[in-house]
């Protein structure tokens, strides 16, 4: 098989049983990868509250060398939302999983004690780590990496949860190699239910390409074209950001920062200061528009707390806004003033506070579904602004997601070039259905 690896790994945490399975070509051709494939596998596996599983699915082009082809998706049943949620993982977890030889990873059962899963191209094992309970994601990464040689340890890609994921909460998110995963609120708690503290992957297998020479030419030409128009691209992005008027974002991303990219990404939209990730555009928007935080120090303090506890900052902002609005109309008995980070931090540290229930639970409990929709729509509308100039952006973004590409690739590379790269990599034609 080309492009894909054609295999899935199934791990049962209850008994440590590990099994390799072949994935049918039909399934891969019809669902391609990403959330689409993860959700279909979840349906076939009959994932539910009683039979919960974590499903990881790489994109068809993840790790092949197509620009921005680094994404992998993770899905699981989130009890507080009564639905299967799916979130994209950035950086290099997806490519590394593929280098282990798998497009899909299925994790079922519940470990008898806290553990982490270590996967290579030779074996997969469940390692008990009872002492890791309460560890921050950064501490977990340090413990895992330091148990190997420096060079090997640095090449291990890790997803982990913090304290928030260990308890029933709607905010428990995932952290991958130090980066908080936006929109993963609740998925961290699925890890927690399974007593799975982290997944570490390190593989060395090849990803074979069907028409490698054609593929190389397509990518080389696309990069040449990108170099010529990169200034125009960054100008467009700056114009959009200027129109959105986000002073907090400008302030945070100003000064001595290092740009960091996911695998094969020429855009490099992630920012670090002194080795630590800074909140990205979506998070700064959520903090400033939903929580009304205007001060950079407050925003960074809150983001730092999210990192330490493994809280999805988007879920936190949505839930925080819900509480602000519900308190305003006297529905919820909670003190949360817009822009007051101290109150918010106190609510985060109080594990019995309503904040930990998450936005969906609050909407249902207080019959405020419309309020939740309005809040999430606000984030979506802002994100859509960036793609306003692209025809059928919604459909194209869905295709890119299945291919394992970042949606921002649409701003930098023509859609038809990406489709041609898919065909050269896999040797298959891509049929896009509604």
């Amino acid at each position, binding site marked *: 098989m080309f492009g894909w690896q054609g295999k899935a790994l199934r791990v049962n945490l209850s008994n440590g049983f590990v099994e390799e399975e072949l994935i049918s070509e039909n399934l891969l051709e019809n669902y391609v990868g990403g959330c689409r494939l993860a959700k279909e596998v979840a349906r076939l596996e009959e994932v539910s509250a009683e039979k919960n599983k974590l499903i990881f699915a790489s994109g068809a082009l993840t*790790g*092949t*060398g197509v*620009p921005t082809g680094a994404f992998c998706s993770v899905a699981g049943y989130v009890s507080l939302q009564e639905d299967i949620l799916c979130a994209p993982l950035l950086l*290099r977890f997806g*490519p590394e999983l593929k*280098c282990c030889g798998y497009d899909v990873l299925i994790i079922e059962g519940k470990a008898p004690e806290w553990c982490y899963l270590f996967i290579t191209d030779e074996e997969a094992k469940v390692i008990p780590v009872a002492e890791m309970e309460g560890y921050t994601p950064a501490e977990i990464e340090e413990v895992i990496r330091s148990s190997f*040689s420096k*060079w*090997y340890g*640095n*090449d291990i890609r890790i997803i982990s949860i913090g304290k928030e994921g260990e308890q029933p909460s709607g905010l428990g998110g995932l952290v991958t190699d130090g980066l908080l995963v936006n929109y993963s609120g609740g998925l961290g708690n699925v890890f927690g239910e399974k007593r799975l503290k982290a997944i570490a992957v390190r*593989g*060395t*297998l*090849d*990803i*074979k*390409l069907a028409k*490698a020479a054609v*593929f*190389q030419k397509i*990518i*080389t030409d696309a*990069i040449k074209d*990108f*170099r010529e128009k*990169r200034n125009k691209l960054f100008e467009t992005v700056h114009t959009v950001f200027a129109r959105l008027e986000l002073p907090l974002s400008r302030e945070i991303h100003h000064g001595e920062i*290092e*740009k*960091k*990219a*996911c*695998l*094969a*990404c*020429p855009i*490099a939209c992630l920012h670090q200061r*002194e*080795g630590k990730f800074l909140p990205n555009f979506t998070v700064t928007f959520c903090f400033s528009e939903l929580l009304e935080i205007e001060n950079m120090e407050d925003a960074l303090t809150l983001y730092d707390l999210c990192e330490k506890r493994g809280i999805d900052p988007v879920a936190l902002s949505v839930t925080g806004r819900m509480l602000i609005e519900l308190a305003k109309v006297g529905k919820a008995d909670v003190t949360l003033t817009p822009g007051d980070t101290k109150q918010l931090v106190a609510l985060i540290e109080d594990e019995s506070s309503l904040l930990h229930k998450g936005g969906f639970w609050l909407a249902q409990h207080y019959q405020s579904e419309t309020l939740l929709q309005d809040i999430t729509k606000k984030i979506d509308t802002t994100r859509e602004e960036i793609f306003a100039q692209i025809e059928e952006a919604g459909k194209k973004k869905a295709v890119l997601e299945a291919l394992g590409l970042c949606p921002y690739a649409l701003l930098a590379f023509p859609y038809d070039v990406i489709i041609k790269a898919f065909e050269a990599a896999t040797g298959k034609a891509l049929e896009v259905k509604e």
Partner: protein
Amino acid sequence: MDPRDYRIRVDTNKCTGCRHCEVACSLAHTGDRSNYHRARIRVIALEDRFLPLMAGPYVSITEECASKKLVNINGFVYDQCVLCRASCPNKSIFKEPDSGIPLKCDFCGFRAEGPACIQWCTSGALTLIKIKPEAEEEL
């Protein structure tokens, strides 16, 4: 092109750690497979920046290895071993993952268009320069 006439200039201020150079290298050398673990260039993450390193020749390290010095870059102190291009038993990088054969950068001498890593580097961190007896000329 004759690889002996060229050098790859690395600007660590521009490298974003995307590792596209690694994928390009593996694809150029294997012909039909993407696998950054086979690359002859590896991007090392230092405290404050990324450092792309080309694989040098294999050396059998000894107690007297010269790479035991400390190097100061931008106020950060690094073990020179980190910056050394050589493949040696102390480093697991720069070897074929399956056979363990040490790898060496050949400047893609077999490709008329020059090194694949430079072609796919979009950040401008890697550039090809021609070495002349009198001066360096950027291509």
